[in-house]
């Protein structure tokens, strides 16, 4: 290996590390003080890049490049301050998932707004001539811009260190991140400090974008790629730790550079593999500490805000079965479009209901369910195309392989909780995604698998039943999903389900009932994985083609949305959410380009106004109205039943 090659590679690694550091330092700073993992941080990065584009193009010109580099982050900070004071501030007392979702809703909104304002196409930001050339360094050719980046980022790191350790405000920030209440009692205005820190974090993200924009390109949604890498960095380094973000950035930057040279196929997998390895050895990251449990008084407030009244009111069986009957009649009166739409809804419902077995029932927020969906789908895809399996055997194996994957992944994940659990499931999910995306020899890579045959089903030597037609497929999907959802409902109402709820409510107390909490969490993770895999298998049969996009983390976010839309603490909530989500999706996409914007606004509204979801809200209203009219039958345990 010669020196010129080494120089080029080292500088390329450092450049990558520099971009990562700028973004993740802000992310970790915000987490440290506000305790919020900001999904929208990637969107702020994107805004930084767009502002850079806009300012250099229309205001200062390429000559004012450096001035633009200052102005763009300030613009981002202004927007961040509005977000913090107008939205985030309302939900500091809420559970973590609502905070995550609110920032995710912002991602959708900001991305679409960027598309409206700046257009959907890729933009490249012109650099002034001085920065466009390259120089020769130890025999290697290095772009001047790379040098600027690798000089500027350490300078920012130094400045950051200076601000945090040498200024009064910086010291206050550090004090607050270790003991919020004490800082409050010492006369520090938390609200103002939170706004300041959030805006400052946004400056760093904006600077990252403004600096990376001219080196890469800008397009709506570029933030969603960046944010995941930054999550990896801050989780590896330890959430809330600035040193961790620095070391994490250098590790990931180097790994990506080395990966491209040594394992060009699986370069992307390496960073997730590293994250998994780090979290397995050090669950809180390299420099992290276990997260403090929120003060009891804070928790109480959150708890009372979403009290779930367990007063049972039962619905007449006829009312319960009527929808199913209607669904059976649908194909007789509708055409292909509705049958397909409904089949999509069924599959999404299964995924969401299975997901909610984790979130709503057990209190585990998984952000990697797409992995199991994908494993199930690829199981059917591969077995049917390459091994000549029949439809039923292939479908039968999809929950089995997904459960096996969940068993391995769950083994590591259930050792963590809260945000860390979510991040580790996300990492495992992305790991599987990157493998499927690149392994052309086995999964077909980014081409996926086309032409999955749906063979006639034969049961017990009976003549084959052809489910190839739309109508037959509709009934087949309805049958499998119906049975699965019924089974999940049964699991939820079983003693096992009751124990899961106890774990959700109070894990420590549950262990004092003699329950092995981790074992139960692992078991339910495997069960949810199996059903998600089955949903994936059905998807492969219905679509007859699959691509790795179904494993991408944005797909993992879908069941989360559906559940929040419908209502976490209800059984049908996620299914209702699936209906809303898919219908909105299908119609809005046909009707307007701004689908993500609408979804983002819906989510935002729900998180702020209806945290119980649509079904939760309807239940509550029904309870109030029926309660007044005396229609609610008080649930009673009959002693005489023997």
């Amino acid at each position, binding site marked *: 290996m010669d020196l010129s090659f080494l120089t080029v590679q080292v500088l390329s690694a450092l450049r990558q590390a520099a971009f990562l550091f700028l973004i993740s330092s802000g992310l970790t700073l915000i987490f440290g003080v506000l305790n919020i993992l900001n999904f929208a941080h990637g969107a702020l990065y994107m805004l930084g890049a767009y502002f850079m584009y806009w300012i250099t193009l229309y205001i200062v010109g390429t000559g004012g490049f450096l001035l633009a580099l200052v102005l763009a982050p300030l613009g981002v900070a202004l927007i961040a301050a509005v977000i913090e004071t107008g939205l985030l501030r309302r939900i500091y007392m809420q559970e973590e998932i609502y905070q995550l979702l609110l920032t995710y809703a912002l991602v959708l909104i900001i991305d679409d707004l960027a598309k409206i304002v700046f257009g959907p196409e890729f933009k490249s930001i012109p650099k002034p001539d001085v920065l466009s050339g390259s120089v020769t360094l130890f025999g290697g050719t290095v772009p001047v811009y790379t040098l600027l980046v690798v000089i500027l980022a350490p300078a920012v790191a130094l400045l950051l260190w200076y601000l945090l350790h040498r200024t009064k405000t910086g*010291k206050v920030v*550090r004090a607050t991140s270790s*003991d919020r209440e004490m800082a*409050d*009692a010492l*006369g520090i205005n938390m609200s103002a400090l939170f706004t300041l820190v959030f805006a400052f974090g946004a400056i760093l993200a904006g600077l990252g974008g403004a600096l990376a924009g001219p080196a890469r390109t800008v397009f709506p949604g570029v933030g969603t790629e960046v944010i995941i890498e930054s999550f990896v960095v801050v989780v590896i380094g330890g959430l809330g730790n600035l040193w961790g973000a620095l070391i994490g950035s250098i590790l990931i930057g180097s790994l990506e550079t080395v990966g491209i040279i040594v394992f060009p196929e699986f370069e992307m997998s390496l960073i997730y593999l590293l994250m998994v390895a780090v979290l397995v050895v050090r669950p809180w990251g390299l420099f992290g500490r276990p997260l403090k449990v929120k003060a009891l008084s804070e928790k109480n407030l959150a708890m009372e805000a979403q009290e779930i009244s367990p007063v049972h009111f039962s619905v007449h069986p006829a009312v319960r079965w009527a929808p199913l009957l209607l669904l059976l009649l649908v194909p007789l009166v509708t055409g292909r479009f509705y049958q397909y739409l409904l089949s999509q809804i069924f599959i999404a419902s299964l995924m969401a209901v299975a997901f909610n077995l984790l979130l709503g029932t057990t209190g585990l927020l998984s952000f990697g369910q797409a992995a199991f969906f994908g494993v199930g789908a690829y199981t059917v895809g591969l077995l049917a195309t390459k091994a000549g399996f029949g439809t039923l055997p292939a479908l039968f194996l999809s929950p089995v392989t997904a459960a096996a994957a969940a068993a391995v992944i769950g083994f590591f994940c259930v050792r963590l909780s809260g945000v860390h659990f979510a991040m580790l499931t996300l990492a495992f999910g992305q790991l599987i995604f990157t493998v499927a995306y690149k392994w052309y020899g086995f999964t077909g890579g980014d081409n996926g698998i086309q032409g999955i045959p749906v063979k006639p089903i034969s049961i017990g030597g009976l003549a084959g039943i052809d489910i190839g037609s739309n109508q037959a497929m509709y009934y087949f999907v309805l049958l499998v999903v119906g049975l699965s959802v019924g089974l999940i409902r049964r699991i939820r109402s079983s003693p096992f389900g009751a124990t899961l709820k106890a774990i959700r409510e109070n894990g420590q107390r549950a262990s004092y009932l003699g329950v092995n909490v981790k074992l139960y969490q692992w078991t339910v993770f495997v069960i949810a994985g199996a059903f998600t895999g089955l949903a994936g298998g059905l998807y492969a049969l219905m679509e007859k083609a699959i691509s790795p996009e179904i494993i991408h983390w944005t797909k993992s976010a879908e069941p989360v949305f559906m559940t929040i839309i419908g209502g976490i603490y209800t059984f049908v909530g996620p299914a209702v959410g699936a209906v809303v989500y898919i219908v909105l999706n299908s119609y809005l996409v046909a009707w307007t380009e701004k689908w993500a914007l609408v979804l983002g606004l819906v989510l935002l509204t729900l998180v702020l106004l209806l945290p119980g979801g649509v079904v939760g809200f309807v239940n509550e209203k029904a309870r109030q109205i029926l309660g007044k009219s005396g229609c609610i039958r008080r649930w009673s345990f009959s002693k005489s039943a023997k």
Partner: protein
Amino acid sequence: MAFLDLNSVNTYYGRSHILFDVSLSIEKGEVVSLLGRNGAGKSTTFRSIIGLNPPQSGEVVFKGERISGMRAFRICRKGIGFVPEDRRCFPDLTVLENLEVAIRREKEVASPWTVERIYALFPRLQEREKNLGSQLSGGEQQMLTIARTLMTNPEVLLLDEPSEGLAPLVVALLAEMILKIRKEGVTVLLAEQNLHFCAKVSDRGYVIDKGSVKYEGPMSDLLINEEVKEKYLAV
């Protein structure tokens, strides 16, 4: 009207009722003790005053102004300093930084506390200036949290069980500190279980038990009141 008044304060943690009609009245320049066993409601009284657990009914009046319902940082800026019981100095900040974060410029004070004045009062802190909060001993941490709160220039200092878990020699030192702080013109409200420590530093005492005030009077009377001691403080 006294300098600091609590009028029939009732405070809850979630659903549990902790303080029952607590009324206190503290004059400027006094050192007043709030005595009681574990869980009697001393810390909750302090947290109610400083606004970390605002009272649900009743009011806290400071210099004629109702402060209950204000947020903690505002109450602090009005001139009430709170030193919590578990010595919560900022562990990742040095001794000097711990003091610096508490400096407040919002308020004009005739003779503000400075780091120099603090070091004169607590020479030990100067020696450990560059050490992190987490590297200090229990006694040093206690001094640091008191010193840090003094930096906010409080007119009233709420000290929650400062003697707890400290060696007798350090406790004696602490008593001296409190007397010095008082000489600087700071009014002190001291929550304690240690009766003899209180007797040394304060003039007047309240005895609190199960969330309500059971006794009020000069420390000299309390010291010889076997009945109150027996019933509410000893076992």
